[in-house]
């Protein structure tokens, strides 16, 4: 018989949640009453065998989680779970656990159960996060700092930096660049070989830029200006595609 449901505690990271979930699945625990971020307390003891919760490379629960998930949807399922996590929705942990349960029970097709309200909500959150990540991949703008680093600031509606950073790692593998989320006050730096958490950001942008930066921005503006066909002007359509939160970072709209 399943043990009684209890609240579950995890360390607030995606890796930590996966490890916690792996632990629950291994013990065939009932779905938790609710999820809470913390390291101790009255919840299910999720990390009893784990030395450092949330460190994926060392975490046996995490490996267990991925092993269990491999036949249930594998990489695609983990990506979808990550999207729900990055949506920052208040009920995200519960939804993620339901996604895992449905997938383990029904395999890959479980998550396509669009008439089930929780799967539909999960699908909607995944779409929103993917859309924001996709939009950010296009609308992020880098400027060149004096030390050669390319630096971009933005204010995404979801915490999409982990998805966006992976994209730029593939795209600019040999450049040094940094992405700064001004809403969540954190950033990542790619140094040409590995990611680091950013420790500080330029305060005075005008002072920090290279000589050629303003020239390239001017060229980009000149290019952009000339693309418009006045006979087809449609500012409403432009506003629809360029949300306000991105506009202040776009040099072409200066």
């Amino acid at each position: 018989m399943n043990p009684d449901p209890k609240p579950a505690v995890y360390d607030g990271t995606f890796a930590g949640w996966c490890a916690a979930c792996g632990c629950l699945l291994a013990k065939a625990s009932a779905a938790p009453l609710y999820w809470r971020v913390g390291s101790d307390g009255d919840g299910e003891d999720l990390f009893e065998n784990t030395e450092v919760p949330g460190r994926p490379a060392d975490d046996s629960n995490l490996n267990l989680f991925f092993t269990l998930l491999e036949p249930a949807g594998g990489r695609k399922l983990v990506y979808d779970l990550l999207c729900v996590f990055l949506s920052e929705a208040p009920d995200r942990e519960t939804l993620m656990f339901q996604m895992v349960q449905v997938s383990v029970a029904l395999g890959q097709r479980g998550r396509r159960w669009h008439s089930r309200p929780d799967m539909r909500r999960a699908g909607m959150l995944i779409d929103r996060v993917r859309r924001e990540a996709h939009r950010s991949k296009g609308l992020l703008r880098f400027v060149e700092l004096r030390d050669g680093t390319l630096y971009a600031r933005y204010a995404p509606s979801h915490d999409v930096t982990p998805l966006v950073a992976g994209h730029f790692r593939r795209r600019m593998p040999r450049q040094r660049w940094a992405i700064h989320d001004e809403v969540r006050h954190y950033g990542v730096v790619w140094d040409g070989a590995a990611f680091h958490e950013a420790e500080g950001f330029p305060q005075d942008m005008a002072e920090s830029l290279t000589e050629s930066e303003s020239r390239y921005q001017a060229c980009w503006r000149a290019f952009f200006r000339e693309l418009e066909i006045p006979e087809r002007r449609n500012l409403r359509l432009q506003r629809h595609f360029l949300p306000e939160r991105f506009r202040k970072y776009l040099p072409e709209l200066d």
Partner: protein
Amino acid sequence: MNTVASAIFPVTSGPVSPPCRINTLIPDDRLERKLGILAQSARYDVSCVSSGVSGAALRHAALGAPARSGICHSWTADGRCVSLLKVLLSNACVYDCAYCANRCSANVPRATFKVEELVSLTWEFYRRNYIEGLFLSSAIWSTPDRTMEAMVRVAEKLRYGHGFGGYIHLKVIPGASLEWIVRAGRVADRLSINIELPSERSLGMLCPQKSRAAILTPMLRIRDTLVEFAEDRGKGFRHVPRFAPAGQSTQLVVGATPEGDDTILRLSDALYRKVGLRRVFYSAYVPVGDDRRIPVLAPPEKLREHRLYQADWLLRFYGFTVEEIAPNEGEKLDARFDPKTAWALKHPEYFPVDVNRDDRERLLRVPGLGVRNVNRILQARHFGSIDAAALRRMGVVWRRARYFVQCGDYRPPRWHPEQLASRLADSGQHPEQLELGLFNES
């Protein structure tokens, strides 16, 4: 850690390579003006698509990787997606095509890029994430071969000289020799040749120096080369060089000549089926001068262009044949409805379609159901019966679909084509919305 885990938590090891920099020019006012002139000259080319290339195609590139689904980097004030540095290499044309702003008889400022200038702009714009890559076209400033050669040199310098892995689209110059076209295909992701006008007669009238053969011969040669490379890959040859992995496309000017939409759609259909084109782009003619060879100087027919894109979509993704959707000879598509609704109103005997039983082919013919809706319906059928409320939750355009589907206990109201036509036409879109998604193929 197993493969799934490492995909989400990538750990990179190995030596740190120095940041990759090339010696790019610092632009001055002159280059800025030149860029303005050559961007303005290229703006009537509507294609700005950067999709269709496998991400692994240039794995060892120093800078740049194409995104499989394409990415838009900005939107112009007319609502068109900007994803490529779309410029002409030169606008100093020796030809005199009536509808073109760059024709030799037009009084416009002229400019020509140097190879290094264009390479620097592409590289630096890409680093700043302004663009996905380069879309290079050119006026014919000397012979077609010399023009094509200069364009290929820019692309080769980017690819081989600097290891640029971003998207490159090269426009093939009509009349260029096959040797240059093949070289272009080796460095470009996509090649295109503008077919310009829907009939040979119009081409002869408005572009006297271009011939049908000069446009079709390279198109067919590109098709054959694409087929050869695909066959070699199919035989398991490991080092088949890449050749225009995103295929070829073309553009048609709509409204500069009197052909109806039937001629345009039949031409597009033949280009898809016989020449294997990936895309045909339609560009509503924008008057750019007072050349008396252009019969009518009306405002651009944006709605007509939009309907042609919708019909084109039906040909490529919805299983319609050109005979089913083309209007009568010399006519335009019905401006009041999208072509699928127009077809449905002419075929009441085909409906209602049963959402819980009918196959994919029939579902795709229902107005208000897109490919994505149909996929969702087919998936959801595994879990039980679908009712009208579930359809609406799946994003179906119920306003239209409700006349054509049945599901669960829902039966559509009886309708007469003429009455329904006036009802559906009234609930049409606002003109501002017509272009939503038009240029944003991803």
